[in-house]
């Protein structure tokens, strides 16, 4: 059966989150297997770190505001870490 739209959106948001956290918030590549489990501690912590840095409500969840911000145009320099 074709994936229903929300499941496909969910998937692409997870890809976006993983790429965003790796690129701008020093998420190590070894954490990839955790990104799919959004409620896993390290990922929640990273999402909170991003939300705090960008001035969003700190929920630790991939809420719609956070997804919207991750789609915005921005500078390519990371926000934290090397």
């Amino acid at each position, binding site marked *: 059966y074709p994936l229903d739209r929300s499941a496909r959106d969910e998937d692409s948001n997870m890809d976006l989150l993983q790429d965003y956290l790796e690129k701008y918030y020093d998420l190590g590549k070894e954490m990839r297997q955790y990104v799919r489990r959004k409620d896993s501690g390290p990922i929640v912590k990273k999402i909170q770190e991003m939300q705090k840095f960008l001035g969003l409500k700190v929920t630790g969840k991939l809420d719609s505001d956070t997804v919207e911000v991750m789609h*915005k*145009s921005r*500078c*390519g*320099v990371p*926000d934290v870490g090397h």
Partner: protein
Amino acid sequence: FTTFPGMPKWSKTHLTYRIVNYTQDLPRDAVDSDVEKALKIWEEVTPLTFSRIYEGEADIMITFAVREHGDFFPFDGPGKVLAHAYPPGPGMNGDAHFDDDEHWTKDASGINFLLVAAHELGHSLGLYHSTNTEALMYPLYNTLKGPARVRLSQDDVTGIQSLYGPPPASPDSPVEPSEPEPPAPGTLAMCDPALSFDAISTLRGEILFFKDRYFWRKTFRTLVPEFHPISSFWPSLPSGIDAAYEVTSRDSVFIFKGNKFWAIRGNEEQAGYPRGIHTLGFPPTVRKIDAAIFDKEKQKTYFFVEDKYWRFDEKRQSMEPGYPKQIAEDFPGIDSKLDAAFESFGFFYFFSGSSQFEFDPNAKKVTHVLKSNSWFNC
């Protein structure tokens, strides 16, 4: 505001810039004037001054590029990443790259070039991103900001002045005689033929040469190493360390001083340290470590103390039986007291005073004798 890890900044106040190429979206003189305006914004609140050059290597090279453009950080087509820039330093450091897949405009109808240029040049001068949504150094592009509103927030001013101080007093106020600035110690000592090191370690593909309160950071991307205070990366590490080595499989560097050792991962200090060196299995008679090397192939670490050495099994996390052994016996040609050691591309490099010995562990012989600072391309 934040600055880049290690607080890199220009050690001179007069900087050069060069506009290497242009976007088709804007007239050339529009790009020229926007870059000038963007630099002026920073000039007005610091002692920095800028002059343009038209060929050769400037401190700040400004280019428009698309996708992969030679720095392993490819642009991503229209939208998302608009530009990026590198912190102060030689070579590519200080440069600013703009994604030419964007639609660059003088106003806010597309991507306002002046706004993005002012932000990226903030990076070129040493500022990192700010959490202040009003700041120029806030990382997200603000579609509402047009050219007339491109100016520094107080957060930006505080940030850049934390690196360079305020602009010189205006000409009509009495100028205090200023002490000549002492030359940066790193630049002078680096090529001193008598230079020796406290410790040397690799770290994620780079090589760190520790000396007193400082370290030289050698990356394969730049010829001239960077020079930083140890405390600017790792505030709780001591100065004048004895030994250091990287266990690549654990992405960790271990730093030794006296009978204690610390662990760092990138620029993060690991909790639970310092620990006593005797927890590694040294006898009480060992008070300090002279040098250490991690052998990636064997997953073993060699610790050198005076004329003897121990071997530590990183998998088992225990010192191997049958040690200490004489260094000269198993490392022929290495018979003076060691200051530092590290491994690179299968060779061990031992440092004693101003001399360095390249040792082939397979052939068990010294293959080259070099100056200790041969890695600095003096």
